[in-house]
């Protein structure tokens, strides 16, 4: 009975998938003659400047997966409320990062190597980036919610435009901000990687909001039945708009983290194709892209699963050029496992096997 309940938990399959990916590493480590827990070992290592930093492959997964995890939060809400995806988040990340760096460095400047060279206090740049994220989200939201444009088409506009605007802001250059105050967002606070902290804060804040307000129910209700929700007094359009706005904000945060990681505004590469990872994270988390019920924890697990796959590839020594192929194979397997017909087949198979056993006993 408890076993049945466990398998019916919506998080069961996403968790099985992440465990499977991790298991591959264990098998590999054993085959290589390493300790089976090698992959999970978390140690303190001294960095070049002598600081003690948390390290290990699990830490790498959590650290590197932060951006996608943050994006997955917004994407989950967008998918739930509007049964569509926001494909602009990667480009919006790039735009926000460029905007942040340019506000700080001053427009036309190509590198900042010392805090004294800042044109404006860093905080202005950071807030500017978040505001820019919200503006982009609001733009998408207005198109989808109030003009009834299909989400894919509406967000296609910023998917192509936002990155280009970012490039314009940077004069087509990679703008370096090699200042510790900025690098910290992609670096470490004490021994802890900052992206992990930022992602954790985002997840906790959104979870608390979902728990203590009716937002979750509003979003799901609108996603399931927009017309009925309106009759019951929900402002369906405003709720969809809000989801896109939050998604844009998440992209802004992820943009800052990603740009800080590389100490620069590289408009061409920041967040490149990351919207696809974010959508994949939502799907891997067992959420229907058809909208309605959502499970935020599933999406977060999905996000880290994607990073776990990537890290595993590097662990296995797969070259980065070939890695996407393997990644695709793994994703196909995971998605197929979660497909309804396969689930039904497994259930049927399990049932017939257990009845077969009973028959044999009798």
């Amino acid at each position, binding site marked *: 009975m408890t076993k049945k309940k466990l398998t019916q938990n919506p998080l069961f399959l996403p968790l099985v998938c992440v465990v499977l990916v991790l298991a591959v590493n264990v098998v590999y480590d054993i085959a290589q003659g390493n300790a089976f827990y090698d992959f999970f070992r978390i140690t303190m290592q001294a960095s070049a400047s002598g600081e003690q930093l948390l390290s290990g492959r699990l830490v790498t997964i959590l650290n590197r997966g932060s951006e996608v995890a943050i994006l997955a939060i917004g994407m989950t809400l967008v998918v739930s409320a509007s049964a569509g995806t926001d494909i602009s988040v990667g480009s919006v990340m790039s735009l926000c990062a460029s905007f942040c760096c340019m506000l700080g460095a001053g427009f036309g400047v190509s590198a900042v190597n010392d805090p004294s060279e800042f044109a404006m206090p860093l905080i202005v740049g950071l807030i500017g980036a978040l505001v820019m994220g919200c503006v982009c989200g609001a733009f998408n939201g207005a198109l989808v919610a109030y003009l009834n444009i299909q989400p894919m088409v509406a967000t296609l506009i910023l998917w192509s435009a936002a990155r280009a605007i970012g490039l314009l802001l940077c004069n087509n250059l990679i703008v370096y901000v090699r200042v510790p105050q900025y690098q910290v967002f992609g670096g470490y606070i004490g021994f802890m990687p900052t992206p992990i902290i930022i992602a954790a804060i985002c997840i906790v804040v959104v979870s608390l909001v979902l728990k203590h*307000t009716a937002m979750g129910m509003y979003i799901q209700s609108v996603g*399931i039945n927009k017309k*009925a929700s309106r009759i019951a007094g929900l402002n369906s359009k405003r709720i969809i708009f809000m989801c896109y706005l939050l998604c844009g904000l998440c992209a802004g945060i992820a943009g800052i983290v990603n740009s800080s990681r590389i100490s620069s505004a590289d408009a061409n590469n920041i967040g490149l194709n990351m919207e696809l990872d974010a959508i994949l994270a939502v799907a891997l988390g067992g959420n229907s892209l058809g909208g309605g*019920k959502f499970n935020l924890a599933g999406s977060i697990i999905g996000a880290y699963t994607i990073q776990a796959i990537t890290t595993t590839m590097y662990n296995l020594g797969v070259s980065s050029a070939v890695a996407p192929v393997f990644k695709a194979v793994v994703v196909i397997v995971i998605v197929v496992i979660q497909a309804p017909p396969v689930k039904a087949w497994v259930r049927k198979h399990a049932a017939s096997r257990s009845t077969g056993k009973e028959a044999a006993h009798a």
Partner: protein
Amino acid sequence: MENNVVLTMRGISMTFPGVKALDNVDFTLRRGEIHALMGENGAGKSTLIKCLTGINDFEAGEIHVDGVEGAVKNHSTQDAQNVGISTVYQEVNLCPNLSVAENLYIGREPMTPLRTIDRKTMIKKADELVKRLDIKVDVTQNLENYSLAIQQMIAIARASDMDCKVLILDEPTSSLDDSEVEKLFKVMNQLKSEGVGIIFVTHFLEQVYAVCDRITVLRNGTLVGEYPIADLPRVKLVAAMMGKDFDDLASIKPEGFEDRHDAPMQIEARGLSHRGTIKPFDLDIHKGEVIGLTGLLGSGRSELARSIYGADKAHTGTLKVGGQEARINQPLDAMNLGMGLLPDDRKAEGIIGDLSVRENIILALQAKRGMFKQLSRAKQEEIADRYIDLLQIKTATRETPIKQLSGGNQQKAILARWLATDPDFLILDEPTRGIDIGTKTEIQKLIIQLSQEGKSIMFISSEIEEMLRTCNRMAVLRDGAKVGELDGELTQERVMAAIAGGADND
């Protein structure tokens, strides 16, 4: 078979899970006749049509078509077309971005010897076809350049050109205006003179009397009768559709129930309208009054209610709620003024299918409080349990998704949603549709009880008898306009006469 009969259906029976949709129904269609198929919602009109066109698989009975040996049993609309039965539905099933000629001949284009489409012949034939039916169009223009009425006629032309003996028109006029309907009738009469038998399904009485030769009436899946048009005046038709033989249940109205005229006003509507659905109307509703809206389907009953509630924002007019001028832009505004609306389409506008019974019940109350003032989980459960108990909603648990409940229990849950908001004015649009008789009576009693508590109720139902049992007063609607009110002693005869209107009205 009589020599001028093109279609006979004998003893058609069909069961949907739990419902006898058709019970031993006969239908006869003669050559060159327009035959109205009438009945209220759920009477079995569409089911009968679908048995004929091969969409439904009937269990018993026989269909004979003129010129076809033996009994016909269609398994698809293609089969039906092969024996000469064509259908035109309410929505035009053509391609707007193709030309009229292409639409007329799609799938059966004239070919050249090289197996390419012979456009010249196609356009010529198309032109002859539309001229014959007196439809004024340029067949090389795209279909989307023409009005819905023309598109409808093109669909009919296409259907009639396919060696058609029986033409079924399923609600073809519901999206047309009066002059367009005129044009459509011309085409129908032309086809009639060519010997086509036409089955005309509609809710509009006027149109039946304007164009039909004969009427077959269905009620609750059974045949009431077949009448030449002259033998069945409107009032009798309405009576036949609704059923005169209603259960004479004991009155549930308490003593002194009728008298609400001295009570203060709850709703005062002046000149309220919604373009295209309900013409300007005035309506007063007193506190503690149950007002019934009556009229045939499509007469504007739901639309009147929706324009008050803001579900379809009123385009003109003013509304006072409890004596105060009110502006209602969206349902939430109406809710904050103490209103509630139980919509007639439970599935599309009522339930949130994947959410639990609990969430469905507290949804409106939560919406009224706002997103940031969440009802505590304990409070939510208490409210849900209270109404599950009070209305005896049959559900496995309060966390069961509402879509797993039966229709009647879903309806009770939506009713609970509104009761939880403690409304002063509750609009119930077909609250008892598709619900068993026991639950119906419970809901009727609840309406009386709510009005005793001083709440005003607007009650919309297709069943006159249940309105007679619960309403103080009735407003009558016809063809998208409020045409009168009935006060005092409400009787079936008075209501039917008022609904039918026209020459038979006294």
